[in-house]
């Protein structure tokens, strides 16, 4: 038997070759993803500033943060933002998916157009919203004045609650396409014969939705909403462009607060502590949306 050279032996050993193939991905992810994740946690326990490596100060940062009213407000804002925007995205996205799933002319054209808000850079579409929300020249205010509904222009981004709702609307606008197109793919896997059988048995459209569409769609809803929650919870650009966390920190999310404290403020340690505190909340949110929805699928006996 011909003896194999070292190179040939290496090429025929799938374990060795497998590890070799993983090298570029592992180098990138270990060096620039896993390491920063660990470093971030460590920084959270130091008083690092920009240009000065910090000293270990234990849980000082965290102790300070839980008494800091701005931080607590940002936690509330983040949760409020995530919950309201995710529910709105789910309801509207599912509705849009069901509309698109009907027999429509120009179906693929509609589907392509619907995705536009999702592919355009958020920072840039946020500028359009900024102009729409402008306190003096807002087109929404203009329309409402013409209809005679209001007599003064609305200061969308100037009032705490209005600003919260305005950024949520912008976020929902951007998030609907992702939810709708993903759920549409799920809807298309449901065989129409279920609906035929149900209508022969006299099921109303609502019953068909409740007992056919929902159970069969639940596994995909779980995945899509988990991602949607993830994106919303860690949102940064939209807030940064529209309000920078203002007015009076009413739209300050944890991500924007971490940025503000760490980069312009220079307190890397404190910013890292805020980012670290996002992790358990984020995990809880993901667990809740994923397993919460999965459990329902299992209870209703839908197979995966």
């Amino acid at each position, binding site marked *: 038997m011909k003896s194999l050279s070292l190179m040939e032996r290496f*090429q*025929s050993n*799938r374990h060795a*070759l*497998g*590890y070799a*193939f993983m*090298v570029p*991905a*592992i180098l*990138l992810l270990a060096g*620039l*993803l896993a390491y*920063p*994740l660990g470093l*971030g946690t460590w*920084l959270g326990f130091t008083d690092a500033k920009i240009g000065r490596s910090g000293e270990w100060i234990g849980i000082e940062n965290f102790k300070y943060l839980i008494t800091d009213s701005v931080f607590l407000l940002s936690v509330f804002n983040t949760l409020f933002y995530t919950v309201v925007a995710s529910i709105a995205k789910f309801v509207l996205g599912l509705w849009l998916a069901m509309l698109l799933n*009907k027999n429509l002319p120009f179906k*693929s054209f509609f*589907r*392509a*157009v619907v*995705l*536009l*808000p999702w*592919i355009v*850079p958020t*920072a*840039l579409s946020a*500028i*359009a919203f900024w*102009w729409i929300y*402008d306190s003096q*020249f807002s*087109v929404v205010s*203009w329309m409402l004045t013409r209809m005679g509904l209001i007599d003064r222009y609305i200061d969308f981004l100037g009032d705490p609650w209005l600003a919260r709702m305005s950024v949520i609307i912008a976020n929902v*606008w951007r998030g609907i396409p992702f939810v709708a*197109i*993903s759920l549409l*793919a*799920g809807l*298309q896997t449901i065989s129409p014969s279920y609906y*035929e059988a149900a209508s022969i048995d006299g099921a109303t459209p609502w019953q068909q939705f409740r007992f056919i569409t929902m159970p069969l769609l639940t596994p*995909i809803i779980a995945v*899509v909403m988990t991602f949607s929650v993830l994106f919303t*919870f860690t949102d*940064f*650009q939209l807030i*940064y*462009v529209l309000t920078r966390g203002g007015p009076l920190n009413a739209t300050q999310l944890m*991500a924007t607060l*971490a*940025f503000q404290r*760490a*980069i312009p403020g220079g307190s*890397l340690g404190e910013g890292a502590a805020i*980012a*670290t505190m*996002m992790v358990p909340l984020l995990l809880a949110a*993901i667990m809740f949306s994923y397993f919460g929805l999965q459990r329902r699928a299992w209870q209703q006996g839908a197979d995966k």
Partner: protein
Amino acid sequence: MSNKNSQGMEFLTSLPRRWVTIYIPLILMLIVLLFPFYWMGITAFKPNEELLSRSGNPFWLINPTLAHFNKLLFHTSYPQWLWNTILVSVCATFISIFASVLAAYAIERLRFRGSKVMGMMIFFAYLVPPSIIFIPLASIVFEYGLFDTRMALILTYPTFLVPFCTWLLMGYFRSIPFELEECAMIDGATRWQILTKIILPLAVPGLISAGIFAFTLSWNEFIYALTFVSSSEIKTVPVGVITELVEGDVYHWGSLMAGALLGSLPVAFIYSFFVEYYVSGMTGSVKE
């Protein structure tokens, strides 16, 4: 997906009913989804007098002007930002695709010891959001002297692109029959030959999906570009428009919108050619 099958019982619903329950809500939603783009476009061509008057009809423009584009292209660093964005996106995309193809093939087909664990770790890596790690990443970028260079962005973008592309390509590779590889092996092909001559040509749609995704994601990236870069010549379009075109309290709405429009067009253009790949990539990765 075929239209004949999705007919269902729809012949039972009458036309007026279809209008009320389907077409009108759909049209309303489309108007809402597309209005900001219309608004972006029309504002970019409006002269300042029309922009700042409350009397006229804001939905239409009377004297279209290119003044905002002129200002943007010849009196700001916008062309430079555009070039940076293209450069960074293309490089980051190629690096990510290269690393992802190898990783996905190894995990899905070589099935080396620990490949299952590796697959899970790649998935978890996808769940790590940039807004959690940008602070430590900034200090790493600083330490290696990459701060304020395009290299900082080219190297950090793959951290969110590689997990996604690997996950997507794993799905594509899984759909290619094993038998093809076995035939090639019997004929004496090495793994590398199998990958480049058999798997990759068959996975071209997957590669296009992954490429389009990686490109649009890097084009849209904001927080890294905002944090790791500070001089105007290195900025990307989203960051440049936000940080440099907004001067004090005087917002130059016209040029802001022109900047947003020009920055959105390249991705929209590329997307329009590859819609099907984009959609299949997005839905495929969700369905896994």
